């Protein structure tokens, strides 16, 4: 059975699907499009010949490829056919869907930077490496996003 960084495909799907889906949903604003993108990411992984040094390397690769495929998505004609977020994410409470709407107001790169920093715990340097940006650029985008989402990023904040 094929393994990547010592993990079999079942382990990879169980471990990383949530992260990749969250990144793709924030970019595409659509669960179905996000699933298509993550599916594409996994197929790209299956064709990958270069070995991964460790699980951190694997995770970083998956995140980077997901973000890049989201960028490709925006260049395609599929963008116009997305279903409104409220229809696909009815499992999120209405008041929390407002938070989603605010997140979607951010610029594409700001959304993924905020997610990688505040949810996944990556530093600005690690994010810069992942997204192939300059550290200063990541830092300034993070500051800007933090100002926009000030309230919801505070610990113990409620809607």
């Amino acid at each position, binding site marked *: 059975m094929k393994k990547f960084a010592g993990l079999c495909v079942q382990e990879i799907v169980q471990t990383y699907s949530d992260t990749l889906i969250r990144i793709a949903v924030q970019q595409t604003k659509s669960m179905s499009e996000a699933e298509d993108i993550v599916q594409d990411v996994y197929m790209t992984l299956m064709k990958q010949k270069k070995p991964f040094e460790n699980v951190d390397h694997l995770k970083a690769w998956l995140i980077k490829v997901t973000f890049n495929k989201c960028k490709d998505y925006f260049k395609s004609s599929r963008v116009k056919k997305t279903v409104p977020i409220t229809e696909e994410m009815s499992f*999120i409470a209405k008041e929390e869907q407002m*938070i989603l709407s605010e997140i979607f107001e951010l610029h594409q790169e700001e959304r993924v930077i905020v997610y990688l920093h505040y949810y996944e715990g990556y530093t600005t340097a690690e994010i810069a490496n992942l997204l192939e940006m300059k550290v200063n650029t990541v830092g300034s985008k993070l500051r800007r996003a933090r100002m926009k*989402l000030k309230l*919801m990023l505070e610990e113990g904040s409620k809607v």
Partner: protein
Amino acid sequence: MNAYKNVMKQIHASEDFKRKMQKEMMEFEEKEKRVFMKKVRISVGSLVACAVIAVVAFVNLNNDTTVDLTERIVVDHSAPAASAVVNIEGVITEVGEDGLSFTLDNGMEVVVTDETKLGIDGPTAPPKEEQFFEPTFRVGNLIGGFTEDTSAAPITAAVIYTNWNFENPIR
């Protein structure tokens, strides 16, 4: 936990999606294995075929009965000039199955042995590739040579110095 994290936590891949992905990835891996094994089988098959062809060619090479008579021609310019009585002369009308015996148009039956000298020797002999000597005896070839034993039948040629079809020569 802040509101952002709370919302993000609620967005996740469904179990259906994960099952579907695991199944597709394993099917992809199986397909890759089948393609790889097919390539291996083709490669091995090609190698075996090449080996068989090589062996057959080698065996045929060793069993080849075609003799190039011109290979037996030895030109020795230091050999003394000799006067020869040409008593084998005519056009081949029939060639034996071994390719080294023939009948001339004058009825003479001639046998060429390992001792028979082929081609012209001596200080004035032309180079081997310029002599009128074809690789094989053929019907229609003009033969010139001599024998030291005219009483025997068939005649064993001592020397054959010409074996050439002037109408349709080959080298």
